[in-house]
């Protein structure tokens, strides 16, 4: 598999007016809306490192490279790509960029758009296009890298990406603070932790079903990942101790959290003003509905709901949280995974005329992932 193979697959589809489902390793195939496609174009075999100069802290890989492979390669040089999207670590970097998937580390290291330096993609006419570059700072030309990030394969098939790496921290420790007490007390503790001088790598509030699944307690938990040099972690740990009791847990707990979403039928992401999430976090972290896994990033202002009872999903989501996407102008409700029939009636995020214009320009025959964004 190579860029040329992608070009010829797309050109062939173009000439036969048949459509393509774009897939990495097919681990996230169930995300997004159903695709009306005749064929699947898999990048599973277009994998591997193109160039890696550790001293530059940049890495160029083929799009089909699994995240776990990137982790292995960079770890040899005490570096990492701090990108930990939920789901299997066998997902590919191409899919991660294409879906703009981010995990807990995003609150300190940024979203995929912030870590991406440049990419190569093949548009719907079969043209090979490069955006950005291979250096850490670059404003040459219009920003096609950002445009493709989160476009779910509908504007082009990403074939290669260049990413910014970081040095692995000398210390990387995780602590759990049990969130006990009244709703008011919990909200004020969350506020105190977020507004403190702590600079955690990641900070998540987990509801009891998640806590039990990760086997780290019973109550809602504030999970804090502290990293950096040892002195910085020690001083933060002391600061944390002055705010609340905490216990150290294995940093592998974060992998457990990512894997919770594997095979989930329904994942909803709600994002809004971070402060509003902090204020109501206690109410949200209830233990009333064991089939709802819930975690909140109070720094970024993101709440994820993972539901295991698909038939009740719409109803319970509505009744439990009072969430109606159209009726909440202060928040964005994004349905990442839903059972097929539930998608009906959910508005597309790319129905505006600019988005439609971009789609027409880059994939004039609508052969790339048709339907996945509700278009």
């Amino acid at each position, binding site marked *: 598999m190579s860029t040329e193979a992608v070009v010829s697959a797309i050109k062939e589809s173009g000439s036969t007016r048949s459509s393509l489902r774009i897939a990495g390793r097919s681990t996230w195939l169930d995300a997004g809306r159903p695709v009306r496609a005749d064929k699947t174009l898999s990048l599973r075999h277009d994998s591997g490192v193109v160039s890696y100069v550790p001293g530059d802290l940049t890495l160029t890989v083929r799009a089909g490279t699994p995240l776990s492979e990137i982790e292995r390669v960079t770890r040899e040089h005490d570096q990492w790509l701090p990108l930990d999207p939920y789901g299997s670590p066998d997902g590919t970097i191409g899919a991660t960029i294409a879906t703009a998937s981010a995990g807990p580390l995003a609150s300190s290291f940024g979203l995929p758009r912030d870590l991406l330096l440049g990419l190569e993609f093949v548009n719907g006419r079969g*043209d090979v296009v490069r955006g950005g570059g291979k250096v850490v700072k670059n404003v040459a030309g219009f920003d096609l890298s950002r445009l493709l990030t989160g476009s779910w394969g509908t504007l082009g098939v990403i074939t290669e990406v260049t990413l910014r790496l970081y040095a692995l921290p000398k210390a990387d420790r995780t602590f759990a603070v049990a969130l006990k007490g009244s709703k008011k007390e919990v909200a004020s503790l969350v506020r105190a932790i977020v507004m403190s001088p702590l600079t955690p790598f990641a900070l998540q509030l987990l509801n009891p079903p998640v806590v039990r699944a990760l086997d780290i307690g019973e109550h809602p938990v504030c999970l804090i990942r502290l990293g950096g040099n040892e002195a910085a972690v020690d001083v933060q740990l002391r600061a944390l101790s002055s705010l609340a009791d905490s216990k150290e847990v294995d940093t592998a707990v974060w992998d457990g959290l990512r894997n919770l979403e594997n095979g989930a039928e329904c994942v909803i992401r709600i994002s809004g003003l971070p402060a509003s999430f902090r204020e109501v976090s206690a109410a949200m972290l209830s233990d009333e509905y064991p089939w709802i896994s819930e975690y909140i990033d109070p720094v970024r202002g993101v709440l994820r709901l993972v539901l295991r009872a698909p038939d009740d999903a719409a109803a319970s989501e509505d009744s439990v949280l009072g969430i109606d996407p159209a009726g909440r102008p202060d928040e964005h409700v994004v349905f990442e995974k839903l059972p097929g029939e539930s998608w009906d009636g959910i508005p597309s995020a790319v129905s505006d005329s600019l988005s439609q214009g971009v789609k027409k320009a880059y994939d004039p025959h609508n052969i790339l992932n048709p339907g996945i964004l509700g278009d």
Partner: protein
Amino acid sequence: MTQPTPAPTQASTSPAQFPVAERLAEIVGERHVLSRPSELLVYNSDGLPGYRRQPRLAVFPGTREETVAVVRLLAAEGLSFVPRGAGTGLSGGALADDIVVIGLHRLKKIISLDVANRRATVEPGVVNLRLNKHVAPHGLLYAPDPSSEAACTIGGNVAENAGGPHCLKYGVTLNHVLAITVLLPSGEVVELGSKVGERDGYDLRGAFIGSEGCFGLALDITVKLTPKPQTVRTLLADFTSIDQAAHVTSAIIASGIVPAALEFMDGPTIRVVEDSIYAASYPRDAEAILLIELDGLEAGVSADLEAVRRICLDGGARNVKVARDDAERMKLWQGRKKAFGAMGRLAPHLIVQDAVIPRTRLPEILATIRAISEKYGVVVCNVFHAGDGNLHPNIAYSADDPAESERVHKAMTEIMQACIDAGGSITGEHGVGLDKMGYMEAIFSESSLNAMCELRAVFDPERRSNPGKVVPVHACKEWHAVPGGRLRTGTSSLTDAPEPRPVEAEPSHPSAR
């Protein structure tokens, strides 16, 4: 590529009233429309005055409503325009060649500040440093800090995706803008990104940032604010050889420590700064200094500070001085930030470049630059964001001397080629504008340039917003068919003299109407 000869453009038209001027005056008030050629002269260049283009008209709306009305009127008339902030850009990006300049510097309201959610919404004409002064009492800062922060506007920063010394750790404008209310060239107002959360769909906000005014203009911008670090420490390491400083830079980056900033100044730059009012007590006899800033929690910073000091000394630093207090820190920074302006002391004209190279190639490229400058007998002042590999080789010279101009031009072309060959980029933060358009084909394929043209056409199908910038139009397939389009034959090569005039045909050129 800088066109060194400042070619004074005379007013290409008689001072006869441009009919739309009166109608614009009805919108913004007579005082805020300029149509006399003598008053438009100062708008014929930005921070890179080697390029001059005389605008036909300048209009300065004072409110969002006036701005919308101005753009709608221009749209109805089919007139092209160039949005302009403070005119501090360094790529000739805000020049208007016989078309309308829309100055947004009067839109300078800070619309809202949300301390709890660490964000602010501002009008495009708000000056970067004013925003920082406004949020500082709340323990917050707006991280992107271009060296022109005291003058440049947030709108301009968005258009150029501006960087600055502290972008090494904190990222560029792109990483700090949450939402933009955009006024499209058609007059339609759209909201890109989200003021409140992370939205799905295409990242059109990301595409708009760095679009250099070609996609329309921003009416308001919502930015992310960053808590002020608990501790900030600044080191000054000085070296008797450029090579040592370059190797130390690579060693610091490779160590994994992410300084808040890591800046490099060479001997000629040090001395010109020391001669200016921003003299910062840099050692005049040094051949290079590194200005390194570390920030974060006190304990962590102290540990990193020791590590960095050791790397510097092991790498041959003569001295490593740590600023004692904020006043000394500010002084060290002022010298760095005003270095570009201080070069006006050397000669009347200045070429400023903005190439980026992979950081491991720094020692090699600096040696190449030195060899090139010796070959052509020019003095290159290097002052740059070493941590990012973002070079700013500057050459001060006199454009009145044609022989010198030619040598300078050739030297700069070779320097840029060396950076491109090293796998770098032609601009890290200044933008393409007019200045670097000639290099675009050296780093992007025809299909990539075409994809950029197509993206622009979505925002501005009539190509009326900042025409003739960023992407050379002959690179765009579909535009070859534009009636009356002036096409270049053959492909450009780096050894060609850059085009002194925009190469883009202007279907809606006012003089053609």
